[in-house]
């Protein structure tokens, strides 16, 4: 419905544009003067006034309508619901919201008094929803008409429509750039806010330096083992291990392909290899995850089991016979494959930006091509390449789908690539998928992990940019 109203608003604004333009033309013609602005600007002026105030109301409705509705519905909690533990109260209202929106409610069954309360709240939410929506629709219509009327009344040959329209345009452009800032602010504030709530129940020191991770918080407060352990060191170790394996694959392969492509390959080869790398870069990570879980994992396991069969009776052989699909090596290698095009295209750009005169000088001194590359081009490109590697590391740390599908869930602080480990991103996904009360330490822990992840990747990016910037213009 909101969508149709929005479409109607667009149609109305287009009509306003045409009417405003012809009105400006007619007014100018009847007075026998040339207007200050072209008639089209008068049209734009009317269209803007018909569209923007009304569209803002619709925007506010879409963005804040749900929040206002929830505040009203949750203002008085029915007695039956008040008796529920605090965790389930939130779930109750979440289900009310889902039922009203036609979304997925949890599997909880409400009966007796709770059923009555549930139905009552659903009815209330529906009526509040209707009131808010109808009110907003009415306001939208009024504002569209009023805006158009106001704009028509201003039109005259003397009216500076162009200046007015251009002010609107610059305001729009500034607003667009502010969105980028708001996004960053939103990320930082939401992560900080939820993490602070998490750190009220778990000390930041325990979180960052604790070595026991088992966030299985019980749904009921009286259940055994409801405290959970939130020491994230095993996750950091697991993330680090997988990142190192990935970089061991991606760094040499990516760098050597970049060197080969920019220094040796014929234009014909470049024209074929570059698209291949671009395809590799465009493959969605969920596809790499599938590849890791169903192809690489089983074949690696079979290989190690086969290897273990050669050493019967030894502890090494026993161990190899028992490795699992979810070993760190699988996720690491596939993540490395994913990063190859990333490393290669960044390094390619950097190597190409080394001035040709350096190569020519070196070749003229009698150095071979590989000597030129190793002793002249690479040292000159080193800052850029290390920046590229840092960006790849930041990618590897933040990558989610491959590890979610191919790495395990056991939080183990080990550097053995054949062991199963878990990573920060895997835990965020596991903590936040499924029916959950949002305020439990379990879900808030995900935000603590998210904050750590954001801080680490941000630091890596800033350092990388710094390195690149500092040495970038050395030869210009």
């Amino acid at each position: 419905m909101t969508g149709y109203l929005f479409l109607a608003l667009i149609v109305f604004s287009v009509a306003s544009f045409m009417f405003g333009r012809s009105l400006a033309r007619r007014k100018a013609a009847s007075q026998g003067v040339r207007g200050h602005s072209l008639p089209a600007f008068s049209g734009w002026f009317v269209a803007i006034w018909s569209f923007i105030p009304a569209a803002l109301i619709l925007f506010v409705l879409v963005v804040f309508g749900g929040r206002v509705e929830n505040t009203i519905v949750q203002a008085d909690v029915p007695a039956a619901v008040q008796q529920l533990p605090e965790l389930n109260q939130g779930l109750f209202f979440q289900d009310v919201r889902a039922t009203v929106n036609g979304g997925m409610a949890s599997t909880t069954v409400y009966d007796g008094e709770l059923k009555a309360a549930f139905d009552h709240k659903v009815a209330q939410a529906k009526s509040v929803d209707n009131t808010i929506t109808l009110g907003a629709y009415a306001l939208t219509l009024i504002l569209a008409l009023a805006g158009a009327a106001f704009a028509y009344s201003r039109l005259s040959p003397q009216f500076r429509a162009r200046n007015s329209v251009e002010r609107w345009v610059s305001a729009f452009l500034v607003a667009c750039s502010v969105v980028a800032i708001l996004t960053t602010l939103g990320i930082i504030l939401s992560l900080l806010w939820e993490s602070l709530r998490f750190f009220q129940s778990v000390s930041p020191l325990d979180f960052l330096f604790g070595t026991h991770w088992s966030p299985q918080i019980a749904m009921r407060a009286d259940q055994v083992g409801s405290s959970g352990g939130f020491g994230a060191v095993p996750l950091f170790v697991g993330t680090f291990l997988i990142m190192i394996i990935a970089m061991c694959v991606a760094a040499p392969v990516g760098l050597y392909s970049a060197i080969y492509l920019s220094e040796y390959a014929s234009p014909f080869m470049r024209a074929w290899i570059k698209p291949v790398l671009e395809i590799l870069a465009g493959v969605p990570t969920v596809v790499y995850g599938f590849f890791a879980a169903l192809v690489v994992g089983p074949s690696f396991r079979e290989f190690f089991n086969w290897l273990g069969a050669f050493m019967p009776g030894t502890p090494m052989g026993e161990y190899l016979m028992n490795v699992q699909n979810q070993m760190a090596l699988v996720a690491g290698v596939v993540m490395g494959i994913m990063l190859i095009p990333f490393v290669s295209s960044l390094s390619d750009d950097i190597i190409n930006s080394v001035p040709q005169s350096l190569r020519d000088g070196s070749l003229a001194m009698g150095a071979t091509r590989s000597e030129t590359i190793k002793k002249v081009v690479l040292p000159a490109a080193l800052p850029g390449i290390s920046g590229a590697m840092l960006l790849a590391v930041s990618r590897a740390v933040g990558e989610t789908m491959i590890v979610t599908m191919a790495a395990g869930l056991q939080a183990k602080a080990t550097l053995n690539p054949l062991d199963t480990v878990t990573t920060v991103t895997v835990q965020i996904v596991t903590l936040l998928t499924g029916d959950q009360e949002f305020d439990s330490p379990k879900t808030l822990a995900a935000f603590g992990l998210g904050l750590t992840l954001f801080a680490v990747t941000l630091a890596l990016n800033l350092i990388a940019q710094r390195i690149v910037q500092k040495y970038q213009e050395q030869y210009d």
Partner: protein
Amino acid sequence: MTDSAQSSLAETRDVAKPDLKTKVAKRLKSRHAAELRFRAYGILAVSVAVLFLGILLERIIHQGYTAFVTHSITTEVYLDPNRIDPADIMGANYDQMITEQVMAKMGVAEDEYGTTSGEYKEILSPDLGFKALEALRDNPKLLGQKISLTSPIAANADLYYKGEITRDIVEADRNVSDQQMVWMDALKTKGLVTSHFNTYLFTNTDSTQPELAGLLGAIMGSAMMLLVTAVLAIPIGVGAALFLEEFAPKNRWTALIEVNINNLAAVPSIVYGLLGLAVFINWLGMPRSSPLVGGVVLALMALPTVIIATRSSLRAVPPSIREAALGIGASKTQAVFHHVLPLAMPGIMTGTIISLAHALGETAPLLMIGMISFVPGLPESVTSAASVLPVQIFIWENASERAFHERTAAAIIVLLVFMILMNLAAILLRRRFERRW
């Protein structure tokens, strides 16, 4: 200089000459060997990358192509008035009725405990029963008549017909018994079961039954989400790029925005998911797992890349264009919107399509906003719960039934085809409209 000294010098020269030569020749040899080795490393690295892509695509196509063919059973069903109560058509056991009719047709005798029909039912599909009920609900007059029904055969039977379950496997290790295999062979020779292109994959929505599960819901969800992303990301991204490139004064604020955009481009996608969860769903109360929230989150994620692509194509428009427009009396806004922007448009579209293709394949942030629930129907609007292609792949990959594995690979092929089409469109746009100044 004495004679002896002279002769000794000549001696050393004579001795040194061949020595140096062999040394140089030796060294040159090793240098050339190093050159060859280095070159070989490069070729090796490139081949490894190409090989990986080859294996990846080969494996996925190998696992997925079988899902594009499926087997259907077509049979006459007699809507028996003795077994269906006209007052309560929902109450009848259609599956049992149809199974018994097919068994009678195939000459399979029922035993006294009904286990034979129970086993026979497993190779047919529950969809036949649903279809019979549906037909009867639409037209109650059909009671007592014969209707012809077609529906996909059970997933395990389909795997047998495709040769993925064979008699070589020990009977206990497979989901199909020897007896069922005999029945299936008979059904095939009698012509009741036919193989055809799997249209169900594109006309059905998600289901817990692999043979009925299709991608239509996910494709619709992806389309809706991508629409929301495009509507938000393109105008905002282009607007921000125009401001930064054409209008912004060079001061501390714009420098901050620039650093900010570069950093946003490198924030892990899962963090955007956390932002969506905390702000859009929990704080603003927007509907969970809806294409609307997914689209907004992906739009925020795509924004930096759209801005960066737009800025570089704006920068490629030569300043002479702007100066010429300003010179004949256009205002700054007119010069930008009437002359610079249209010339930069092909580049902007290319960059935008590529970033939208990237958004199409994004999964992690969508898991955060609850897009992991089982959605059996088509999404009605952008605010109702929906599934999208990459998440559907993730959900199917986790399913235990073997028949879902080939469907997962098939879904990947469908997703890759969509992405390749988008990238192709971008490349064609670039080829067609690209201008060098």
